[in-house]
């Protein structure tokens, strides 16, 4: 018997919060990798990926639709609409893990986006403390996420797929408070 695997987009089946104070939307499907590499090979790794690896803590760098998010001192989350060609890294010590099936992303946007996230995330999301381009692993309620501010009122939220219904449901519920 053949069983068909279905890929459900994030937010599938979720009742969206009313109004436009907080808007939840899925991000397009993308290839995702976790790259760990020492400083000596970071330039080569960035060239293979097609975009620079940011070396400042908790910052993201974009090149077209490609994004490299600093997660740790030798660790990046790479997001790309197509599969990059990493063969140039063949002789270079590194760890490259395809996490495209593990996690997916949504955007949380709108004038009360930060307030909605702050119902479950303890970080200071004021623009002075968490400016556009900042990214980090953190938590929403009981789940770990990657949070990336892509615009003053827009956040990219990555979560593991099995946790996404919880994250989206939590944020949708929290957003109702700001929909009046």
């Amino acid at each position: 018997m053949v069983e068909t695997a279905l890929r459900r987009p994030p937010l599938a089946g979720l009742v969206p919060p009313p109004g436009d104070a907080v808007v939840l939307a899925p991000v397009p499907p993308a290839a995702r990798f976790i790259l760990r590499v020492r400083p000596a090979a970071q330039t080569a790794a960035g060239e293979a990926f097609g975009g620079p690896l940011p070396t400042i803590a908790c910052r993201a760098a974009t090149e077209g639709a490609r994004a490299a998010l600093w997660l740790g001192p030798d660790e990046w989350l790479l997001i790309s609409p197509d599969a990059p060609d990493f063969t140039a890294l063949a002789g270079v010590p590194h760890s490259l893990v395809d996490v495209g099936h593990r996690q997916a992303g949504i955007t949380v946007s709108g004038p009360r986006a930060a307030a909605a996230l702050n119902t479950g995330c303890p970080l200071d999301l004021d623009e002075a403390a968490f400016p556009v381009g900042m990214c980090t692993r953190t938590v929403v309620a009981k789940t770990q996420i990657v949070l990336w501010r892509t615009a003053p009122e827009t956040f990219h939220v990555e979560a593991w797929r099995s946790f996404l219904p919880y994250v989206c449901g939590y944020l949708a519920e929290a957003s109702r408070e700001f929909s009046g």
Partner: protein
Amino acid sequence: MLLIACPYCGERPEIEFAYGGEAHIARPADPSAMSDEEWAAFLYARTNPKGTHAERWRHTNGCGRFFNAVRDTVTDFFVATYKTGEPRPDLTPRSVV
């Protein structure tokens, strides 16, 4: 909320961190040459001070890295944080109020 200064990410809320026990405990190079008492002491005996304590923390919901902290066990005040591999900073104990 208690803020802990991750050596990589800066000040972050305590909820992002996980405690990792006492720091600077070197694993013996040759365990099979040790007596049961010495091995048990390595495994279980800790200083358990009242006052400043060097301990491991991990920024689990952040950069994911282990680092060390000197914390006052009486006040829960974080005196210093530093990267794994660096020596324990020479600090005079903070007086307990």
